[in-house]
């Protein structure tokens, strides 16, 4: 029940934020460059994105929250260490996304001065941070598999169930 209510609240949150963005209306647009064939250009970032950045950030964080809730549903455990571990992952993921949004704001001010590695700072955060942060959940899955995902008692329960079903079938 609680899981359903939490996810439904998060989904309604996305509806509301998007509804507000629709109410404000689009600013700027994709420009189809005539000089370079089938290549689009992105218009002025400051005009196009600045008013929507907080709304976009909210949608991103709501989405990340839905993903982490779904991970928790898949494991189905209610013990504190597992919840803490998952909450830490959510915090990491949401923090990376927040940093991406903030660094984009710096980027639109002075694009050519904001490089981190070979790419602009927010793009580097996207490529390394947004890609890398979920590796925490991969590590959690592998390292804690025997404790949280499929502990020996769960495996035993599954084997017992299969034995009972086999017995019923043979009878």
């Amino acid at each position, binding site marked *: 029940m609680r899981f359903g209510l939490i*996810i439904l609240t998060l*989904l309604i949150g996305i509806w509301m934020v998007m509804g507000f963005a629709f109410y404000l209306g689009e600013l700027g647009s*994709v420009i189809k460059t005539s000089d370079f064939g089938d290549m689009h250009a992105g218009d002025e970032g400051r005009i196009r994105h600045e008013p929507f950045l907080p709304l976009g950030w909210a949608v991103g964080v709501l989405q990340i929250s*839905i*993903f982490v809730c779904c991970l928790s549903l898949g494991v189905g455990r209610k013990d504190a260490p597992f919840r803490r571990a998952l909450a830490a992952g959510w915090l990491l993921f949401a923090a990376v996304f927040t940093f991406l949004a903030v660094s984009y704001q710096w980027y639109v001010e002075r694009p*050519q001065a904001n490089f981190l590695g070979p790419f602009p700072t927010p793009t580097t955060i996207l490529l390394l941070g947004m890609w890398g942060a979920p590796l925490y959940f991969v590590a959690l899955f592998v390292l804690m598999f025997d404790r949280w*995902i499929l502990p020996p008692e769960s495996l035993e329960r*599954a084997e017992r*169930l299969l034995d009972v079903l086999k017995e019923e079938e043979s009878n």
Partner: protein
Amino acid sequence: MDTWMHEQRSTIILVCVGLYMLMCIGVGFWALRQTKTSKDFFMAGHRLGIFVTGVAVFSSTMSGFGFVGGPGLVYRMGVSSLWMVICTPISFCLSHYLLAKRLRLFAAVRGTISLPDAVASRYDNRASGFLSALAILLGVMGYLGTQILAMAHVLRSLLLDFEGLRFMSLEWCVAVSCAVLVFYCTTGGIIASVYTDLVQGFVMMIAAILVFFAAINAIDGGFYGMANTIVKHDPEAIGPWGTLGIFGCLSWFFVFTLGASGQPHVVTKMMMYKNLRDAKHLLPISVFGYAICALLWISIGLVMRALVIQGVHSPLANADEAAPQFLQHYAHPLLAGIVFAGLMAAIMSTADSFLNIGAAAIVHDIPRALRGRSLSNELAWARTATVVIAVAASFFALKAGKLVALLGAFGWGTFAAALVPAVAIGFNWKRATALAANVAIATSLIVNFSLELFGVRIPFGIDKGAAALLISLTLFFTLSLAAPPKPIARDIETAMDV
């Protein structure tokens, strides 16, 4: 030697593709002897190893789109389409956390041999099985049609370089490429499919690594030089939202992250591995494999964009030309050969999975939903259905024109919106009801098809599939919470508790 290789470029590429196709035929012959029952044909007898399953999961996720469409989107929109790629670690996490254990347990408990089979068992409702089979069949026809057409186009573009082979029309190329695909899918079913996926996965990884380094070398200053060129021309293109914009990118992030758990050709593989404990290793293998393959997606599009801006390369009339043009002009002939084989591998590894789940829908799921039992002599019918689906999809691809593109675009979003609530959530959440699952599936089909058919443009470049997924998820949770909890069969409930 190098000059000779450049002169023989087309021959080298064709030989690489030919060798790859011969390997597929070889696997088909081997798998024929391993396939004795319909359970072997659809589920590989539930005896796949860790490595084979892990590689099959990522290689069937990476279709021809990742090798051609992906770089094309990067060329056209800049960084926007990278949101489809960077979400893969979290999307694989979701599909493995939610389904790796659960689907395998359902298969063990109820002997399910397809996803609709598992849906019908979970909700104890034949309509749910029927609707999910219908959604799969519709998605399969569109997706398979586009994959077959892509294979034929690749083959034809290769044959055009040979004077004596120019007579081969697109229809002939469809026939040749389909014949290889149908051969190994008919003889060896899913066993042939996953073992070719294994080879295809490795071919794709090698191709992606080599292309990545070729791309760095193709431009002065490597990736820094490339990013600098793009930022001077259009800072937004190389910014995190690309030219599509923030909400468009986030809609892709949503539908590609959650949607991966609803792709039947991918998650069905999670019913096939041998031991429950193997699930532990599947996730890192899939994440690692896909990450390597994604290097090609990221690098080619950006480099081609920079080369065109610098005036080194002429502008592309069609963005999908980015990958072929890069291979033709900036890659060593041997590398081009490997990548073209990798491209065929990417297309075939997805197409063979679609053929298999499509056959399961026709000979197993729909008859069971309508008559309460599957067909007798299921294996023979499954082989026949595989041929029929491939032939129908080929005709459909050649004759239906716009409709193929419509159903192709409809594929990922439809599977996501239809199956994420009913399968990924419903298999783990006991409050989910059959009515909610059926409404979610039906709504997703109607919303997706209507949006595509009427060409509706959602503001901010929001993806139609993401909108359909948001609608179907909201309906699914609302309807489930509104109804009192329904009793679940004891064995299914225990499987959900494990």
